[in-house]
Every structure is written in C-alpha cells, then in structure tokens.
C-alpha cells in the first residue's frame, strides 16, 4: 500500500486528468464553432475536424451583415429593460422593506404568488392585450413585457436585501435631516451595489436569451432580436451549407455576454450563490 503522501499525489493527478477531460468535452462544441467559423465550404467538407489555412475571416463580415441589426436591437431592448427593472424593483423592494401600511402585506404576498405562476400562462392574454392596444410589432411592447416579467424576482431580492440593512443606519440618516428619498440615495444605494449588479446581470441574461416573447410580439424583421434573427439566419445558412459564416454569426452573438461576464464574474458569482441559497 502506498504512503498517504503518495496516494494524495496520485489522487491529485487523477483529479486533474478527469477535470481536463471534462473541460475539453464541455468546451469542444465551442472550439469546433470557432475553428469552423473561418472555413470555406470546401474546407469544411474536405477537412471536417482539423483547422485549415487560409482563414476566411470574411465569413465574419458576411455574418455581421446578416445579424448586426438584430444585435443592436437586442442591446437596446435589453439595456432599457434592465434599467427599468432596477428602478422599479428597487423602489418597490425598498417600500416593502421599510414601509408598513394597510394592504402592504397583501401586496407583497401577491408578488410572491405571481412569482410562482409560470410566465407561459401570461402569454396569451398579454399577446391579446398588446394587440388590442396596437402595440404589437414595437420595441415598446417587448420592453414593457420584459420589465413586467423581470421585476417580480427583482422586487423579492431587493426587499430581502433592504430588510437586512440595520435600521440604525437609516435612523441616523433621518436624524441628520435627510428625507426618505435622500436617505435612499445616499445610504442605501451605495450599500446595495452588489445586489444591484446581481439583479442587473441576471436580468440581462434572461432578456438576452428571451426567444418566445420576441417571436410572438415582433413581426417586422427589422425589429427582431438576436435570438429570432439567429434562428432565421440558421435556417438560411444551414440550408446553404454555409457553415463558416453561420458559426461566425454564433460567435458574434456570443460576444456581448462574454464581455459582460469578463467584467462582472466575481460579483455575479457571489451574488448568485448567496441569492440562490437564501432564496
């Protein structure tokens, strides 16, 4: 029997080996996507697996000409929705945490209840309502729906966070003569930056990935988001076997989220793990 030290060393080597295999398997589809994104149709059929020269970077130009507009649409609708979710949810969360008035409990219970009801039940009446308001086929419809769907979890998270802030802090601010709104801005906002960031990133992720709402709300192609645009792009380019430009389009569509995460990973992980375990 090997000594404990030796056994631990073997254990470490095996762990690394398993992890490396898992990482390779997990990332292989994306590596393949990157490699193929710079291939021509001939290179694809003649060298299926291996990278080939020359690289066809012009695939990216072609893909951008097809998906660029959708990217911009997604960026704008997501950005506006996230800002509004933060605004609405933080204000409401603050009120639920700090104010008590007749009916406030019932309202909060309502929010909790709504959180449990699946969004799919809303799909039909919301579609009909927005159609009757003549709002279909506008970005406004998309933003309004995103905010109404996204704010509920936000209210819950913000409220829980504000409850955890000691009263003394706020009382002190009030003694200094600060009004409610001022104490909100000067005391609470600085404290709640991590939670703001968590809600922002989670909302961004949800809205960026949303497929079904754009599908039923937007019919004009020039308004489409990246999710819709990419599906139609796939139908056309897979049909042409133009795998190179197709994968270039996938890479382009992935860039914003990857950049966002590169900046925010630490806070996001902290916020998410804390939030998830508490929730």
């Amino acid at each position, binding site marked *: 029997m090997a000594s404990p030290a030796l056994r631990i060393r073997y254990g470490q080597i095996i762990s690394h080996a398993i992890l490396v295999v898992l990482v390779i398997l997990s990332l292989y589809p994306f590596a393949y996507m990157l490699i193929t994104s710079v291939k021509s*149709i001939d290179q694809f059929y003649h060298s299926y697996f291996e990278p080939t020269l020359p690289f066809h970077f012009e695939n990216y130009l*072609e893909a951008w000409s097809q998906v660029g507009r959708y990217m911009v649409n997604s960026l*704008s609708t997501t*950005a506006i929705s996230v*800002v509004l979710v933060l605004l609405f949810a933080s204000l409401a969360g603050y009120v639920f945490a700090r104010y008590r008035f007749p009916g406030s409990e019932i309202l909060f219970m309502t929010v909790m209840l709504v959180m449990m009801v699946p969004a799919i039940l809303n799909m039909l009446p919301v579609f009909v309502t927005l159609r009757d308001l003549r709002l279909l086929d506008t970005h406004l419809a998309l933003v309004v729906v995103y905010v109404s769907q996204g704010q509920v979890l936000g209210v819950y998270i913000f409220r829980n966070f504000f409850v955890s802030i000691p009263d003394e802090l706020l009382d002190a601010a009030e003694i200094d003569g600060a009004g409610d709104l001022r104490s909100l801005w000067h005391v609470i906002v600085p404290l709640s*930056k991590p939670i703001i960031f968590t809600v922002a990133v989670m909302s961004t992720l949800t809205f960026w990935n949303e497929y079904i709402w754009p599908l039923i709300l937007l019919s*004009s192609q020039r308004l489409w988001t990246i999710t819709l645009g990419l599906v139609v792009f796939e139908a056309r380019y897979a*049909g042409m076997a133009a795998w190179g430009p197709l994968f270039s389009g996938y890479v382009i569509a992935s860039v914003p989220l990857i950049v966002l995460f590169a*900046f*925010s990973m630490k806070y996001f992980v902290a916020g998410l793990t804390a939030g998830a375990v508490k929730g």
Partner: protein
Amino acid sequence: MKDTFRPAIAVFVAVFALCGGIVFAGGAAEQTALPDDAVELRIYVGEFTPRERLPSDRWDPPSYLNTIIEEYQELHPNVRFDILPEIPDGDEFLTWITTQYLAASGPDVGTMLFSEVNRNAHRGWFANLLPYLEEPNPYVADNEAWKDIFLQGVLDTGTAPDGNMYVLPTGLVGTAIFYNQDIFDEVGVQPPQTWAQFMSIQQEIKDAGYIPFAFHMSGNPYQANWALRSMQDMLLDDRLGEIKGTGEPIERTTIEAEGVSQKELVAAIRRGDYSALDPQWQEQLRLLKEWSEYWDPSWIAMNVDDAHRSFVRGQSAMMWHSSGRVRMIEADTLRDFDYGTFSFPTITQESSPYATGIPAPAIGGYTGAGAFTIAQRTEERGTREAAVDFLRFLTAPENYVPLHEDLGAYAPGIRGDFEVSPEIRPFLESLERGTFRIESFFRGLTRQYSDEFVRVLQEYLTDRVTLDQASQTVQRLLDEAAEDLIESHNWTDIP
C-alpha cells in the same frame, strides 16, 4: 471592492444606455416628416424581394424589382418604398404574416398564397380588387380594363367564394421530379411512367448503393401533401363527384378552385362520402409507405434545403420540386452532373386495385410567386391609391415579364407575346394535364388537422401504428376539423 465596482457599473450602464439611445434615435429618425403628397408603401413581394449577392450564395438572387421601383419613382417621385425582407416560406411564414395583419402592420402590397388569402378574407385584412380591375390600367396601351391583361385562370383562381377578388394570383408554377442523369446511366434505368416502374427503378438504385429519393418532411411538410394530392386525385377519381356533392364527374382544369372546395369537403365528411375508414381512401397511405422504403432515411429531419444538398452532391438520385428550384439547381456549384425531369408517375392496376389509369394531376397552377394583395388598411393609411397604381405598373407586361425572367422560377400569368425561359417550360407543360381536384391535408381543412395528420403519417410510415389505427385517427381528426369549421364559419346549411 468598491473601486472596481464603480467603473464596472459605469461601463455596463453607459454601453447599454448608449446603444439604446442610438437605436431609439435611429428609429425616430426613420420617421421624419415627408412632403404633403408623399406616401410610403410597405411592400412584401416574397421571392421577388431584391437583395445583394452574398459570398455564400451559390446562385444570383433576384434584383429586377429595384429597376421597376426606380422607373416608378421617376414617374412618381412622391412615393417611397419600404421593401420588407423575404421570410423563407417555412412553417413559421404563415404565423409571421398572420401576425403582421393581426398587428395591423401588414404590408400595403403583399403576397400570399391565394388559398390562404381566401381563407382569411372574412377577417377583413384585404381590399377587394374587383372595382380596380374593371378600370383601365394607365400603364398598358389601349387598355380598357386592367383585368384584360391577365389570363382567365388568374381571375378564376383569385375569385373568393363571396365573389370578390382579394388576390391576384399571377404566377404560374409546375412541379417535376428531378433526377441525376449520371446515376440513372450508371444504374441503367430510365425515367418511369408508371408507379410500378418508379418502385422498381428505385430498388435498382438502392441496390447500387445510392439513396433513391431525397424526400423531406421537416419544417414545411408540403411534399407529403403533393404526393397525397397526386395519389388521392388518381385513386379517388370515380368518387370525386360524390364528394363534391353534385354527383357529376369533375373535369380537370388548371383552376384549383374548380375542384372540391373546403365547404364541400366538410359536407362530404359529414355525409361520410369522404372517409378515412374507406379502403379506397386508405390506399394512398399504403402506397406512400411502399415508396418511403426508398427515401433518404433522415426524411423526418430533412427540410427542402437538406434535400437539395443531398441531390446536388450526388448522394440521392432524385428530388421533387417546383420550377422555383430550377435556377438554383442549374447554378449550384456543388453539382457536377447532368439532370433531367419527369412527371409524377401514373398509378396503374399493376400497383393498386383502385387505379383508374388516369395520369397524375399537375401539382401547380396559379400558385407561384406574385399572388398580390392590397391591405384593407391602406384606406386609413391613405396609401390605397398609390398601392393600386404601383400594382398596375408592376403587372404591366413590359415590367412583369422581365421581373419573372430575372427570377427564373415561374411564368407570368398575363396575356402577351413573350417567351417563357426554356428551363421552366417542361414544368408548365405539366399543367396541360390539369391540376389536382381535391386537396389533401395541407390547406384543405384546418391547420390543426394538417399538423395532426402529419403526426399520424410519421407514425404510420415508421411502423409505430398500423394502417387501421392510422385511418381511425385520421377519421377522428376529420370529424373534429369538420365540426370546427362549421362552427367557426357558421355553416348552418351543413347538417
């Protein structure tokens, strides 16, 4: 911790807000005020939609509409055009265009298959074109009535059950089976005439190691509908009068609308004259299954583009398509063989006791690109006059013929002295046999019936259910669809 936060949040908010601002500003800028007499026409022209050739395109996309619009704008500088991009005619196209009209943002001038238009006419989306067709078309010399420039079939096909005309189906299309000449030569087989020959050459091709037929059913299952339409028309030939309710045999013409209408079909289902429990009806499913032995094994997951690729790369020996594919197959750089075409084979007594020996009907008619509609809402938008005027300009032969030549897929359904491109001539010749007289699952009843029928069909063709079980399910679906249509159209005259 705080120090990294500020810049990160600032960057996050700034980037997103900036993008949002740019786009919203851009959106606003697009709607700048126009001069007083200016109008903007939103047009959707389907396959005619002009676009630049992209590096991945293996054939030239159409572009002639740009020329037409330029010439039109020289005459009418006050008219601006917003050309909607083409949506591939897949499963989602109908949902897409329907949603457009539901959202009251449907195109001023649009295209939609005539049967779909007439099915949705009661919703008030489309303008009645009849009054305009009676007036002269100023872009055609000595024209007394605009309608005179069209072939009679256009007018007959486009007339809705209520007698109005909401659509101008001006594109003539035919279909044929494309075959790989090299594979046929290598295997030593000839294009078949009869169903029995068709089966036997496929067996030989299969034995030689090729996939005989690139059948596809993913996305839009129209090909199965074509097959069943053809077979049903041949196998139920002696029953069609009974189904129509007149008892008289129905002649084949090029006009689809002269066959069994949706309402007549519903009445026949109620009377039991059109029944899936009838062995004569079931025969079409049995023959289709016999054929499916020779399809590409991935037919359930294949769409038309996969089938096209399988054919041009020489993997499959045959595919079935309309004249809309000819130019693409001609120009495809992946193809290195000669091809030919033949018509869907005739079912004879050799293959089925119900065969009457009449040849297969043409799949086609006035259903090609350019079934034009004008939206009812052009009235309130103040674009009605411009929409009608532009459509008159567009259909004037000196514009309409070159538009079709540029697309190379269909023949224009107008009178005049012009040549149809030679590649698509055989497709149009097939129309001489007359088109099918009874629709199969696809647009015959409800979309739900169509979707459910495809499900049963897939289960039957893959041996999940027997012919008996499949027929019983179809009968249930037929009954449900009939009931559904009677209720939604309020057809109180059908018992």
